[in-house]
């Protein structure tokens, strides 16, 4: 939020119809930030790598946008850096909305389409998380969430 509140979303966030989760512009800006800020280095296009995958639909800290924002802003143990000094609060919310979209259980109507580049998975608006959900999670470290 531009007002500096983050963590719990302020009421305006809900009053505006959760703009960072449902607005096509914010989601696509989030997608740009995902590549600009090097998220791909660890999370690939959502398949995971050094960091956990998003496509499998398992959320180590829950799928709510608030906890995704907290993960990006403050970092998490085992390698997730804090971005609080690299991104503005609004950018973090945009990015969080996009990350949530990658692992959404059902496709968001406003989800971005494919990128103009080589493809490693179906586009966000084709709902890969639902397809890959049955594979179960691939925890990278014993501390990172439950084993199925």
């Amino acid at each position: 939020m531009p007002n500096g509140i983050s963590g719990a979303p302020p009421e305006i966030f809900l009053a505006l119809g959760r703009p960072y989760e449902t607005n096509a512009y914010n989601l696509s800006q989030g997608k740009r930030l995902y590549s600009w800020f090097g998220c791909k280095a660890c999370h690939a296009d959502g398949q995971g790598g050094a960091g956990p995958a998003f496509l499998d639909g398992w959320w180590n800290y829950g799928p709510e946008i608030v906890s995704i924002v907290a993960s990006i802003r403050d970092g998490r143990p085992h390698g997730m850096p804090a971005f609080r000094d690299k991104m503005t609060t609004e950018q973090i919310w945009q990015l969080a909305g996009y990350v949530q979209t990658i692992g959404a259980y059902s496709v968001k109507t406003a989800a971005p389409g494919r990128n103009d580049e080589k493809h490693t998975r179906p586009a966000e608006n084709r709902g890969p998380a639902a397809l890959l959900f049955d594979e179960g999670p691939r925890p990278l470290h014993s501390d990172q969430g439950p084993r199925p």
Partner: protein
Amino acid sequence: MNEAKPDTRDSELAPPALAAALAETWRTPAGLWGVLAAVDHKIIARRYIITAFVFLALGGVLALLMRLQLAQPEARVLSPDRYNQIFTMHGTNMMFLFAVPVLEAIGVYLVPLMVGTRNIAFPRLNAFSYWIFLAGGALLWIAFVLDMAPDVGWFAYVPLSGPQYGTGKRADVWAQMITFTEIAALAVAVEIVVTVLKQRAPGMSLDRIPLFVWSMLATSFVVIMAMPAVIFASTSLILDRLVGTHFFNPAEGGDVLLWQHLFWFFGHPEVYIIFLPAVGMVSAIVETFARRPVFGYLAMVMALIATSILAFGLWVHHMFVAGLPRLGQSFFTASSMSIAIPAGVQVFCWLATLWDGAPVFRTPLLFVIGFIVTFVIGGLTGVMVASVPFDTQVHDTYFVVAHFHYVLIGGAVFPLLGGIYYWFPKITGRMMSETLGKWAFWLIFVGFNLTFFPMHILGIAGMPRRIYTYQPDMPWYGLNMFVSISSLVLVAGFLVFFVDAIRSARVGASAAENPWDAPTLEWATTSPPPSYNFAQIPVVNGLSPLWDQPACLMVASGLRTDRRELIVSTVATAKPQVREASPRDSIWPFWAAVATSVMLIGSIFTPWAVVWGSVPVAVALIGWFWPKATPEDEL
């Protein structure tokens, strides 16, 4: 139902009884049912024309908003997002919802009358076409009200309109609106081709077809050839965006220039789809008001055909700065310039007609004179932008904006307005006001030139098109302010025109059958024409039937009056072949249009809409074509 009635022929009835019998057979039912089920080409064309003029007015409001924003540097009247939506809407609306439909609609109204038949071919398809057009227009404008309007320009270049950069459903709305208007236009084109080739009055051989009908025939063929390219383009854009195909993705073997080729392969002929009917109107008006047949009929027809063929050979001149091979570009320079030859031939023939004629200066002729003055400017600037080096400087600047407004307003809207003044008495049975008409003409003519001529200079001064603002240190402020003020004069002219049209439709002086003493067949019936157009089908002996046989027109007889019959004739010589039954009113085209609209709009959101949406479409089509067990053609 038909079987129950006796086989009555028009030759057996006295004129009043014949009129009554035909009126009973051809009438459109009253009430809501009649509104939804009408298949009379005149009713549908009237709706089409009125709807298109509503879109013209809306598009004009958008243009005014743009001029308000551009009147001053760094103005904040509109946000860049709104401005981009507005200029995209303006272009899309004017091309797809106004210019093409209104000119085709006038063809739908006039072609059956001019060739002397009782209804257009495939009248139910005609009804379907209107409903689809209406749904496409509503889709675009509702999206605009909801802040979902396309913001990618009327030619929607990828990647800006592609999945990565065109966020939300805006570009999808644009692409699907294209599908709607293309279906509507294709349907009308097929009807007109068949009407002209197979339903002409006996004796109207190919060399006796009025020039307006020739122009509609040429236009319809261009529509049929050009539209599939853009339907393919817009469909593959939707697939790229929704399903994740790679037609336009360079990284996966697609190509962004493919879009430009496909779009302009349609987009340039599109200009002639708008221009050709307009020259047909000019020929009709010149002929009537110069009081002599158009000079060089054969040359005019050949020019129309040449234009419609050459139209497909010059799309690349829209892509001269895209980095295509030089030699290819030079070829397209030559082909683009060559289309000025048929255009020139037509202008010379009109001038010759006026020269030898005895011009009667009524409002329609004024608009035609305005057309010649402005269209020649637009044509000449067209020759300029056909040159590759010239174009690299003015491409995508206000010079091009000025050029295509000269071609489209000067070349098509002026004849259209002249045509409205000319055929208004035929369509409504009332004359438009000559005084207001002259006011409208002078305001529009002066306002138009003051608005658009300075844009040439702005382009030369380096102002690119599609910018929502410019900085105060650029030397464009004064001219932009001047243009914005001049646009008010243009708007005043259109307001006078609209006031005149609405007022005259209600209280104008009533019109005789042939108020202008014109030569073509549409003036041989009452104003407005009855539902069956002609009590008896006329027989044609020459190019200007009402001038050749002013006292009485020969007619063919022998058609049944108890069912909707018309004559099908041979293509070249128009010898009667068979009597064909024309379809009756039906609600099914309306339901088919509703089902198609639901399917197309649904497919903006999910590809499954195509699968499930095709079921209601199939149901509607089955209802539409359900066999009625009536005898077909009778020899």
